């Protein structure tokens, strides 16, 4: 009561500010540390959660698509005769030659490919220890087809396998598909003649009219009809020839759509605990080795931005910190700058974590390639560097 009645003040105010020891205030300084190592690491790309999937082949890049439709047997009764079926896709993206034809093969999937562990290698190898088929897709059901489209075109893919369509509509909507009647289809590009990777909207696109749609024509008890089903699941797996991608070990490669991520290490850092007010990581793009050289977009990148991610001991992203950087131009060079004060604080207490992972913004949506100057760059101003603004405290 005494305290309150006197109108006491327990909030900080400037009274006595000049009585305090100078070191309490600290002196703000900045120091730049340069990267001491780097790597370009392949990373498993989880593509089932995106509103886009890819199909095609360009140079040594390949993308295989997987699609599955939910087909309730109530929609095409067993007594009905299926006459044809096709899929309509909405094109949205390309990597490679814009109007190149895209020949591909269609296979009937015979094992679940929904697992996030699915990779290009495992799908291409096409073996899986799972009865009854012991492979992902049935090569005896191969059908060849070709599409050619612009980035906003609709694409039609015919499904000639009437038996497969019949079985899709005969397994019911409940109960498990233990015999793998409906695991969908696998589309693989023809590696000999494809010159483009094309992106299509998936079922996760909010505009339902753009979602992949299966049309099944049939003749039923009351005449012909068409059953329309939206795709229930899709994903893609992709690859690139490592040797053709990593052509210069002095560069850090960040490849979207595969993905490759750049790992940058800083062995030297602040040696004493400090208060970090700001930490800016800067990397410089080598434009001549990046997407602008071979991607036929009006602009060199679909999205000219990078993420910087914190990593754990396994050099994989641990999700603790991330920062996004758009590009800026400095002396004619493209620079990416990341605000990483939180990460620098972590580095100051954990020397083993002084690494940062770079990956492309929306790396599942495109095949942008960023080639970043590494720590051995001839010019020090191109080298990856982190500038720490800090105060020393006693």
């Amino acid at each position: 009561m005494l305290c309150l009645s006197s109108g006491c003040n327990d909030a900080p105010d400037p009274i006595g500010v000049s009585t305090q020891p100078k070191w309490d205030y600290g002196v703000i300084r900045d120091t730049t540390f340069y990267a001491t190592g780097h790597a370009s690491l392949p990373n498993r790309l989880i593509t089932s959660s995106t509103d886009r999937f890819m199909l095609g082949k360009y140079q040594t890049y390949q993308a295989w698509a997987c699609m599955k439709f939910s087909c309730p047997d109530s929609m095409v009764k067993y007594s009905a005769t299926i006459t044809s079926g096709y899929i309509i896709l909405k094109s949205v993206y390309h990597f490679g030659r814009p109007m190149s034809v895209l020949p591909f093969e269609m296979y009937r999937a015979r094992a679940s490919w929904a697992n996030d562990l699915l990779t290009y290698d495992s799908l291409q190898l096409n073996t899986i220890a799972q009865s009854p088929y012991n492979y992902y897709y049935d090569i005896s059901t191969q059908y060849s087809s070709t599409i050619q489209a612009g980035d906003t075109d609709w694409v039609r893919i015919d499904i000639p396998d009437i038996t497969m369509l019949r079985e899709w509509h005969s397994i019911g909507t409940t109960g498990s598909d233990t015999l793998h009647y409906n695991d969908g289809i696998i589309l693989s590009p023809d590696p000999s003649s494809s010159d483009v990777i094309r992106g299509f909207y998936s079922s996760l696109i909010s505009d339902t009219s753009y979602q992949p749609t299966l049309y099944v024509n049939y003749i039923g008890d009351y005449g012909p009809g068409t059953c329309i089903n939206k795709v229930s699941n899709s994903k893609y797996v992709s690859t690139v020839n490592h040797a053709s991608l990593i052509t210069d070990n002095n560069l850090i490669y960040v490849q979207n759509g595969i993905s490759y991520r750049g790992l940058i290490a800083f062995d030297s850092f602040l040696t004493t605990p400090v208060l970090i007010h700001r930490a800016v990581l800067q990397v410089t793009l080598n434009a001549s080795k990046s997407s602008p050289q071979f991607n036929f977009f009006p602009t060199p990148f679909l999205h000219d931005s990078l993420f910087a991610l914190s990593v754990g001991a396994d050099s994989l992203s641990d999700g603790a910190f991330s920062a996004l950087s758009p590009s800026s131009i400095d002396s004619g060079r493209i620079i990416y700058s990341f605000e990483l004060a939180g990460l620098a604080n972590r580095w100051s207490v954990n020397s083993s974590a002084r690494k940062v992972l770079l990956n492309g913004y929306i790396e599942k949506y495109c095949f942008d390639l960023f080639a970043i100057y590494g720590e051995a760059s001839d010019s020090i101003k191109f080298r990856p560097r982190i500038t720490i603004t800090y105060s020393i405290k006693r």
Partner: protein
Amino acid sequence: MNYFRMKATLTVFIILFPLIVYAGGSSYSRYGFGDILRYGDSRIYAMGGTGIALVDDGSINLLNPAGMSRIGYTRFSAGFEYDSFSSKDNSGSSTYSMGGLQGLAFAFPISRENGIVMSIEATPFSKVNYAINSSNWDALSESIQHQNFYGSGGLSYLGLGLSGSLLNTLHLGGRLNYMYGRTRQYQTSSFDNGNYASTTFDRTIYYSGFTFTFGAIYEGIDQLLDFPSLHNLSLGITLRSANSYDAKAERIFAENDTTNQKGTADIPLSVGFGLSYLHQNRYRFLGDFLFENWGNLKPFTLDPVTLRNSYRTSIGFEAIPEKGADTFLKRIFYRAGFAYNSTYYKINGVGINELLMSGGIGVPMGPESWLNIGLQVGLRGTTDNNLQKDIIVRLSVAVSASELWFLKFDEE
């Protein structure tokens, strides 16, 4: 309400009330161990903290353990102090308030004939309390940096004392003091430039260690000098040993980077002299001088601030009620004091001094028991050299009671 319960409730309230009130204080307490407190007892408090030569059965002398040797009944004291600081510097003024436990002490007579009394006490030794805001232009961020500094904590000691008397004129006492506590400074920093992160820094220094206080009071001056009129004059001396306390600094940077650093914090020798004269068994006059050589300590590596030697001079007066006083007002003790304290603070090259006036009353609550109320009003520091001046008001409310207070006497 039962009389005993009322007393117990009052005692518990005085002990627990300090836990309720807490706010700000003077920025000078940033230095050293903070504001060094000189409590002594609620009675001594009202006499400007004067009592080195006070030997009496009416209180537990926390300044000089020899002063306990006249205690005839088990006695305890507990007090609460409310502080108000009105501080001003060249930028403005503000008022801060805080409250806290002033001390808790028990004394147990073992041999009245020999003046052997044992005591145990818990007393604050120093207090840190401030909250400062600083806003300065920072060239690197090209923006204003705002920093807040919050200081808190302080040291306390647990004391185990023993007194004894020789020839009924020489009283000796000793007290083992276990000093402990922490001082904490919590800082926040932010910038007007949004690219710069807000940060925190939390530094706590923990202290622990022992000192020993020796005290003596001599009442035989009249015999020694063969000067009977000095019969009621006593001289006192106290010595507190110097020592190095264990200190550990814990620094937390941005709430995730913690460092620990060990060191030692020296506490200096403290020497005090006092005299007390009782006139006609009604009026007591006291004077103290205390010296502590803070300025000669080796630098405290964990927080190397500059301190200086301190000394404190004080005088006190107490009007003792006449025996058999028939009115309530006549049974009240009246006290006053004055102190000049050359504190151990030396800031911006200027020593910080303090002038203090005090007064108070001792209201009888029962046999050998008083509710002591003391008020201290002081001035500290200067606004020269960018320093600050504090107007200090301290109010103490304490119970000093003997075991008789808790006894229930049958009415005749």
